[in-house]
């Protein structure tokens, strides 16, 4: 069967307190079906506690051709990382 259903992106939160992460994509005719399909396809091995689905067409993605201008300028700016401070020993978890 040729599948004419639109593509949806699936985001699953695996534990309370963690963020939703992109798990993959699937086809579905409507949002409710996308949610049910996501439940069946991506959480049947107990992977999640919450699911988001969004139709793929609503995601605006950066163009890989633009990678040079978008991302490369950040590569030589090490001073943007907070690694130049001397931390007192008492400060933990930084």
């Amino acid at each position, binding site marked *: 069967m040729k599948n004419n259903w639109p593509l949806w992106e699936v985001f699953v939160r695996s534990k309370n307190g963690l963020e939703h992460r992109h798990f993959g994509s*699937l086809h579905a005719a409507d949002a*409710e079906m996308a949610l*049910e*399909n996501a439940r069946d396809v991506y959480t*049947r091995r107990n992977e999640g506690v919450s699911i988001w689905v969004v139709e793929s067409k609503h995601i605006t993605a950066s163009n890989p051709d633009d990678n040079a201008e978008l991302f490369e300028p950040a590569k030589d700016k090490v001073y943007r990382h907070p690694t130049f401070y001397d931390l007192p020993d008492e400060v933990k978890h930084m």
Partner: protein
Amino acid sequence: MKNDNLIQYIYSIADNALILGQRLSELCGHGPSLETDIGITNMALDLLGQTRSYFQYAAKLSEEDITEDDLAYLRTERQYRNVLLVEQPNRDFAYVITRQFLFDAFHLLLLQKLQNSADETLSAIAKKSIKEVSYHFRFSSDWVKRLGDGTDKSHAKIQDAVDNLWTYTDELFHNLGTDSELIEKGIAIDLTKLKEEYYNKIKEIISEATLSIPESKYFQKGGKKGIHTEHMGYLLADLQYMQRTYPNMKW
């Protein structure tokens, strides 16, 4: 034998899950899309898992030295107590969904009552299964609405399935003759009392799906007494083949 009535009652619940689970697992790898294929196979596994719990209990109650496998694989057709609805073949996706929907609505009502059964094991199995079956009902009712309110073709196909499978719904509410004592003790559920709520519920969803409700007054019955439709023998041939050909075979 002292537990005979209870064992028959367990068959009447478990055989529905076994036979429907078998029907659904025939679709493994044949669903209309990857997503629905996995969805349907998940339901098949849920139902077979429930069947195991019931059969383990029935085997324990039995005075014979038998296991869950003997009950699933080695009874004869007349000894299966499932309703005719669940043995109906997978004619097309609309049939698969309608059969599921007509059964799930009943299954959910039954388990909601069975979780308060005076029999602790049945109550525990019902409590565990109810979450799975709530999802089955959600899945199948959403699909009934989607197909009914979809294209002209999907509407026609599911209307046809509803019209043809409707005749098997009344049997869901037949008690076995041997149930009355168990009903009095609060172990078994008096199925006749679920009927009104069942038809109200499914008619609501069928109407929402823009489908018409069949008006037929004639209903098929027999499965619960072991008198099955012509489809049952073929299903059992598939189901029992391995154990019949290679007795006591293990995975």
